[in-house]
């Protein structure tokens, strides 16, 4: 197994240009299985995400997807293109949720390359991405900034 044969060849540090905007190829419909399973798996005890009876009596009328899952799903949809060759995920900032996500809504992801820095490692550099999550009605439901230490091309062979 060579490291580089397992991941893409067009998503190294050198491949990202500040100002580029990507539309990621796959969308994902957020199902009851996704929301309830992950909410419960991560010990989130807020029943608005898993008690349909109590939520039926609210202004929403149904369970709401946990925002952390919306964030993880949008970043996930962008991950192959923008994180597959990461050395490390460094952080997130400016995470906001503009409208609720319900079971059956479909998320699509968009990314802009905001900034690049050389960082302090020879084998990688830091890329700052802005991510947006858009639903099936073209409403922006999520936005956030993510900083990633991305491998430079050929760094694996030089190890």
């Amino acid at each position, binding site marked *: 197994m060579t490291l580089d044969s397992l991941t893409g060849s067009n998503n190294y540090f050198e491949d990202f240009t500040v100002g580029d905007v990507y539309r990621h190829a796959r969308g994902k419909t957020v199902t009851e299985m996704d929301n309830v399973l992950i909410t419960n798996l*991560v*010990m989130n005890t*807020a029943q608005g995400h898993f008690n349909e009876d109590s939520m039926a009596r609210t202004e929403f009328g149904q369970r709401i997807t946990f925002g952390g899952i919306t964030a*993880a799903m949008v970043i996930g949809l962008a991950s*192959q293109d923008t*994180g*597959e060759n990461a050395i490390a995920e460094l952080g997130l900032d400016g995470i906001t*949720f503009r409208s609720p996500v319900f079971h059956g809504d479909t998320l699509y992801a968009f990314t802009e390359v905001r900034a690049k820095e050389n960082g302090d490692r020879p084998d990688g550099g830091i890329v700052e991405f802005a991510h947006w999550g858009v639903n099936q009605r073209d409403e922006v439901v999520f936005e956030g900034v993510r900083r990633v230490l991305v491998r430079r091309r050929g760094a694996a062979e030089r*190890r």
Partner: protein
Amino acid sequence: MTTAAELRSRATLWPKGNYFEDFAVGKVFEHHWGRTLTESDNIQFSALTLNYHPAYFNVPYARALGHPGAVANPMLVFLVVFGLSVEDLSEIGGAFLGVRALTFHRPVAVGETLTARSTVTAVRESDSRPREGIVTWHTEGFDEHGELLIDFLRTNLISKRPNGDLA
């Protein structure tokens, strides 16, 4: 035969969560339970969120990158630390507004155990929603030795205590 109506009349609600009035700047919450991250958590979470870094689900690949074994998906680390904080901070209800200044301090290995703590950093009224207020917390996630793994600022709308419902 016991009926549900009978049970309701005899029972007292064992309440969960804190209201807006329960938060004051500087108050610290040591959150319950802790959570060991398992291989099953990590693969299931990464697969369901389509997060495709091989270090999360290919052990030789993770080792080749210098990790001791599979790396815990950082978004899973974030959501578990968040999840552990919910009963103390936001279970009572109110919209999750956002997260700022989140830092992953180091990669976390599958098998490590997370604990969480939060400190109230801001409390204010909501202009548009008088029955709720806005609270910000600094939440920190630690490994079993107390080393800081992740920290972030979270802001939520939080319900005020219903009229006549005294703590």
